């Protein structure tokens, strides 16, 4: 596996790609915050927010439907909001029977449900766009500049740096397990659930020990190269006029969306 196997970055030179990562992180969070502030049923505002995403998609050169195609990731969670369809009082829209339950969907319930799912759907898209146009290490670097504690960002950097190494390790273990627990075609694989859980637990324990020992070697290697507790970077972040302009413009658009959501 390659070191950037997990990065969702799509290489490019679009105006959005070259923006300062700090601006991109701030605008992303502001966008999600704006979604959370919009009242239920503010369809014009939701539409404008989607338009903003579409424009950003287009400018980024990834294709106008780039985020749309990947945006269904959070959809299963919509199940958690299903109950509002029935519990919020209002005019009945539809009703049906499941077994002995008589369920009535109300208009207010429907409004709330669709609003929740829309907010989530829009927020996920902007998060997808952020990691598609920014290399992940640069996002972490931006977080450091935005005053996220250095301890946390350093741990995240290490996590990202060694994730693919340990994932390779897990893959090898899983392959080894598979190779040793063959099952004849049509027969159930052997062992009880407890036995299988124990094997999985042993793998987790083994992985823990290997990671633990690896972290020792990593520390020694880093120490011999001059590590003093902080990670250095050779890519300093510098605001340019363009970055500030884009940032201010995006915030203004978000404020406009907020106003549009309340008329």
């Amino acid at each position, binding site marked *: 596996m390659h070191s950037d196997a997990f990065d969702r970055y799509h290489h490019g030179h679009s105006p959005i790609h070259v923006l300062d990562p700090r601006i991109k992180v701030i605008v992303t969070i502001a966008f999600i915050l704006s979604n959370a502030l919009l009242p239920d049923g503010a369809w014009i505002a939701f539409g404008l927010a989607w338009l903003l995403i579409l424009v950003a998609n287009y400018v980024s050169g990834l294709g106008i439907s780039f985020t749309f195609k990947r945006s269904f990731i959070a959809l299963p969670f919509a199940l958690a909001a299903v109950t509002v369809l*029935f519990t919020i009082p209002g005019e009945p829209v539809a009703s049906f029977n499941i077994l002995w339950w008589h369920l009535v969907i109300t208009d207010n319930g429907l409004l709330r449900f669709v609003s929740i799912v829309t907010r989530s759907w829009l927020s996920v898209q902007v998060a997808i766009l952020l990691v598609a146009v920014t290399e992940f290490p640069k996002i972490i670097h931006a977080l450091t500049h935005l005053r996220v*504690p250095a301890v946390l960002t350093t741990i995240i950097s290490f996590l990202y740096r060694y994730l693919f190494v340990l994932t390779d390790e897990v893959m090898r273990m899983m392959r080894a397990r598979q190779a040793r627990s063959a099952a004849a075609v049509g027969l159930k694989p052997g062992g009880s659930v407890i036995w299988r859980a124990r094997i999985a637990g042993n793998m987790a324990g083994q992985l823990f020990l290997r990671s633990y020992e690896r972290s020792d070697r990593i*520390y020694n290697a880093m120490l011999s190269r001059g590590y003093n507790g902080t990670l250095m970077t050779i890519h300093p972040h510098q605001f340019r006029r363009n970055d500030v302009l884009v940032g201010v413009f995006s915030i203004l658009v978000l404020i406009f969306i907020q106003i549009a959501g309340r008329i």
Partner: protein
Amino acid sequence: MHYAPPQLHIPDGFLNLFVSLICWAITALVLAVAISRTNKSLGERQIPLMGVMAAFIFSAQMINFPVAGGTSGHLLGGALAAIMLGPWAAMLVMTAVVAVQGLLFQDGGLLVMGANILNMGLLTAVIGYGLYRGVFGSSRPVKLVVAGIAAWLSVMAGAFATSMELWLSGTSNLQTVMFAMLGVHAVIGVGEALITVAALAFIFRTRPDLVDEKSAAGQSGRGWVVAGVLIALTVILLSPLASVNPDGLNRVAMDLGFIHVAQSGTGPFAGYTIPFLANSSVAKIAAGVLGLLVVLGLVWITGRSLQKKSESQDRPSPMANRQP
């Protein structure tokens, strides 16, 4: 990548602003303490260790075992991390895991990340370590059994907190979401418990020096035991109440004045309103801004007080001033 996304990752949009900010405030405060503690007790050596351990938790979540009917058991890892690394370090490690899952894989939102860290990182660490700490010095089987119970309870606590947050945000009906969440996670928790116990037993056998209790014996662990037991009891006592008799919890919320800010799931109003303003959009914005200021203020104050404490050290602790 086929890593396991547990159902506890709340996406953006499912919690209202008020609940999101409250959760961020709690999380930021606890993390600020965790950072100052780890800065104090551990050197620079610990940073690579915690980083690689975070990668370990992340990749260990890919390990699964078939249970029945196409479902499989997974590891969430909060309790295991807390038992092996201690509670403060485990909190930081789990925070990093949740942060990367949210940022990179959109597995859990950004504005609601405070809630996700609270549910999956902080509660699991307190329960996992607190209960385990209570049986320090006991025989190995006792420790393993308690670790298993702690692992199961840590998953249940996460599910419990998730349901409460969804309910307070007016996204779900309390009874339904609590029943469904706890039901599903009672089963998932068994997988978690089995893997945690087996992993611990493996480490006991192969590297008993890593679970040496003498180093921790000097510090007082009573606070952890109390905190762990209290949270566990809250989950055990309140969850049947919530899933069977939600009116009881509604009553409690009303007595505590919660219901002003929360939404019972049956009311037509979205959350966060300020009582003395009418339920207008102005009130909502004001409430949002107010919440934001409270969060930033709390974080700033804690940051200042912790910084003063650690000024005697060579490196002041970098404090949280998080963007929610």
